[in-house]
């Protein structure tokens, strides 16, 4: 038997929990005769294997892994990569068809134009009708072969009883082609049949509809890109403490229960529980919360978040597929798979149009048969009706409107990545908003200054002067606040940050302390006078920071994530459209309700775990709602994918941007409202386009059915067909361009 045939495949392995499991899978597969390479990624649960197909089969591998106590399943490469290939192939076919359609149109329409275009004598329709017809036949056959997908898909759904746009194209062009073919064969006997050719009609319809589909297919969601970036968030290696020694090893080899060392400024490799030291951690990438979270002994840290100041030792709680990050990846993949395909408007219209046309064709044929006409005439009538039924502007109606709509969106800073998003947004009846970074700025700012002895500006000056070298976001917020008020800062020295509490620093020879309650207790600062106010502010979701000096607190600076000015207006506008607005946050109920009440959302869902956001969306969808999700964080990514329309805030994380169908470049919520309006306008435009596409051809229907035959012997002629086609195309394109002038404000 002939040689080697090495192939590479991927398998999803289920049931792996630790590094021993993945190495077991590697070991058993590597032992198989014919396997050249075998690697398991514990995080994704995927086995990549290279083997000789002549020696072993997929079944052998599955059985082998099964025997080792795991379940293996051949992993079918992501659809998206397929669609990339399909898109490239379609592109080639479209270009090929456009090139072929031009000479075809020249040959068959050239003689109908007011100024007759010259044709070589050997294919002139009067002298050599057969050459004239066969030349068209050859060009058309190639075009139809390129568009064979319409016939495969179209007839299939027609016979299943759900005719769609493809069915219409298949029936219309198919009958036009067959009719012309019969005419071509008859030419040697009846030369006047040369006037009854509809080749160009069939070819142009197929080409234009293909072009439209290609234009629509170009915009696509990049979820797989988002997933790749998500996986890169977690570091590849971790520093493990084994028998008192620090060893840096790949995270795949770390086991649950081991101790890992996390250095300041590095990303936390895996989920764990702090057993030694304290620090503050930036979890904003995962939870969306902008203010760093203090971590003390027994607190849990999430893999992928950034450690700020302290050195901590953590006991590993989850590895591989159990980590928070891996779960988010899994949820994104699930959400993507669960997305129901949307029904396109054009398909719906075709669903009604096709049976109607069939009925007209049958009735017309029966009527003429009853009236005593011969079978040839009856068939001509039947086919003519089908030929005129398929408008060539049909393929253009949706994509032209979507292209113009997308362009209009872009000029308003609304980046629409998929045409489908534009098509669904108008149906949205529930909007889910993430709080931090979407409704709010996502960055802390000074909101209130309280001091019983000093002026507000003086207290801010002291606080900002002390904090000017601080790297902590809260400190930076205070400095930012002073800058905004144009307050000059004093010189600072002896700055020291006290992890988990605050800072101390000297200005003008006086030592000041800024920080939380713990800091006051630690340094014996009397905060009794300010306690009530501080608690009040904390209830409103603000972070009060005590400023102390000489054993007592001299004031409080409150810092909080502020609401974007535009959010309130945007939410009001959405509600005016009859959309119910939900706010989703991981924050505590108190803060959430306070902010939710202020911006006027209908429902507040608080204390949502990072990986439960998608479930909230799914619940709403189960209630029959068409849900739009707007968010900016990594933890929003699965929800963005799950939602019918996912909108990412432009200032958000890359992963959110990749997961969303729409990106709001200006990070302004009012643009979400504009996007909904744009969608409504686009849908209206598509409907008008569909009307114009069908209108002229529908006018030709009675003619094809032979209504005028009784009066003056007139039947459908290619001239009328061509005229209807060009008129409908011009109207559709013109109407789509009109969309550009829509006002979105």
């Amino acid at each position, binding site marked *: 038997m002939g040689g080697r045939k090495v192939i590479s495949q991927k398998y999803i392995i289920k049931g792996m*929990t630790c590094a021993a499991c993945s190495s*077991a899978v590697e070991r*058993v597969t590597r032992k198989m005769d014919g396997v050249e390479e075998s690697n398991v990624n514990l995080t994704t649960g995927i086995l990549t294997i290279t083997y000789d197909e002549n020696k072993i089969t997929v079944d052998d591998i599955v059985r082998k892994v099964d025997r080792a106590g795991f379940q293996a399943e051949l992993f079918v490469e992501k659809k998206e990569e397929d669609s990339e290939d399909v898109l490239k192939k379609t592109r080639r076919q479209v270009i090929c068809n456009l090139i072929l359609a031009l000479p075809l149109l020249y040959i068959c329409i050239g003689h109908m134009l007011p100024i007759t275009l010259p044709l070589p004598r050997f294919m002139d329709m009067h002298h050599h009708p057969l050459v004239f017809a066969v030349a068209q036949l050859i060009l058309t056959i190639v075009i139809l072969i390129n568009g064979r997908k319409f016939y495969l898909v179209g007839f299939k759904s027609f016979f299943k009883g759900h005719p769609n746009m493809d069915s219409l194209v298949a029936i219309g062009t198919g009958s036009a082609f067959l009719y012309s073919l019969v005419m071509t064969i008859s030419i040697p006997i009846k030369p006047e049949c040369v006037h009854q050719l509809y080749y160009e009609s069939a070819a142009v319809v197929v080409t234009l509809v293909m072009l439209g589909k290609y234009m629509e297919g170009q915009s696509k969601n990049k979820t797989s890109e988002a997933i790749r970036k998500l996986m890169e968030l977690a570091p590849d290696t971790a520093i493990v403490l084994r028998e008192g020694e620090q060893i840096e090893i790949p995270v795949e080899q770390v086991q649950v229960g081991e101790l890992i060392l996390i250095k300041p400024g590095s990303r936390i490799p895996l989920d764990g529980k702090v057993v030694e030291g304290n620090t503050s951690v930036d979890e904003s990438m995962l939870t969306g919360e902008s203010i760093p979270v203090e971590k003390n002994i027994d607190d849990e840290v999430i893999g992928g978040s950034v450690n700020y100041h302290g050195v901590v030792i953590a006991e590993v709680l989850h590895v591989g597929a159990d980590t928070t990050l891996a779960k988010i990846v899994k949820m994104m993949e699930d959400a993507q798979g669960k997305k129901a395909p949307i029904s396109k408007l054009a398909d719906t219209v075709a669903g009604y149009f096709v049976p109607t046309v069939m009925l007209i064709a049958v009735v017309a044929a029966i009527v003429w048969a009853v009236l005593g006409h011969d079978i040839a005439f009856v068939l001509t009538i039947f086919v003519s009706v089908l030929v005129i039924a398929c408008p060539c502007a049909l393929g253009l109606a949706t994509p032209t409107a979507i292209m113009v709509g997308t362009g209009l969106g872009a000029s308003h800073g609304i980046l629409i990545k998929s045409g489908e998003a534009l098509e669904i947004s108008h149906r949205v009846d529930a909007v889910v908003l993430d709080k931090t970074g979407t409704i709010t700025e996502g960055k802390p700012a000074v909101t209130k200054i309280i001091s019983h002895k000093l002026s507000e500006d003086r207290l801010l000056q002291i606080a900002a002067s002390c904090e000017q070298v601080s790297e902590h976001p809260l400190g930076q917020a205070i400095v930012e606040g002073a800058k905004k008020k144009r307050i000059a800062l004093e010189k600072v020295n002896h700055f020291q940050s006290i992890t988990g509490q605050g800072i101390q620093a000297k200005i003008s020879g006086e030592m000041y302390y800024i920080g939380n309650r713990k800091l006051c207790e630690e340094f014996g600062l009397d905060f009794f006078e300010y306690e009530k106010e501080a608690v009040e502010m904390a209830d409103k979701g603000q972070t009060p920071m005590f400023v102390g000096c000489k054993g007592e607190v001299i004031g409080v600076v409150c810092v909080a994530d502020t609401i974007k000015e535009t959010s309130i207006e945007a939410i009001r506008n959405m509600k005016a459209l009859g959309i119910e607005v939900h706010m989703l946050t991981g924050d505590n109920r108190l803060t959430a309700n306070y902010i939710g009440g202020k911006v006027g959302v209908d429902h507040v869902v608080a204390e949502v775990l990072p990986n439960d956001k998608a479930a909230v969306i799914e619940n709403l969808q189960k209630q029959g709602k068409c849900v739009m999700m707007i968010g900016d964080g990594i933890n929003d990514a699965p929800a963005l994918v799950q939602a019918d329309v996912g909108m990412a805030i432009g200032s958000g994380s890359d992963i959110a941007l990749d997961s969303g169908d729409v990106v709001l470049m200006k990070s302004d919520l009012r643009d979400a409202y504009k996007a909904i309006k744009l969608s409504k306008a686009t849908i209206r435009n598509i409907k008008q386009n569909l009307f114009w596409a069908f209108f002229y051809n529908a006018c030709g229907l009675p003619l094809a059915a032979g209504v005028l035959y009784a009066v003056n012997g007139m039947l459908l002629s290619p001239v009328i067909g061509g005229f209807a086609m060009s008129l409908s195309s011009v109207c559709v394109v013109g109407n789509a361009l009109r969309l550009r002038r829509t006002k979105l404000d």
Partner: protein
Amino acid sequence: MAIIKVEDMHCEKCVARITKLFTEEGLDFSVDLANKAVTINGCEHCVKTALEALDDLGFEGVVE
């Protein structure tokens, strides 16, 4: 009775996998995760079967 050392046995999942396959093979055995060892009760032939089964599970067993 023979004791087979299985160094790569780390977690409960490993124990479960060994238990499943050994039961299928009809062996009389007990698994000890703490000592990373499997005890086989029975004949010479059983130890051979056990070692082959361990090999299929991706473990290396050493008879003590």
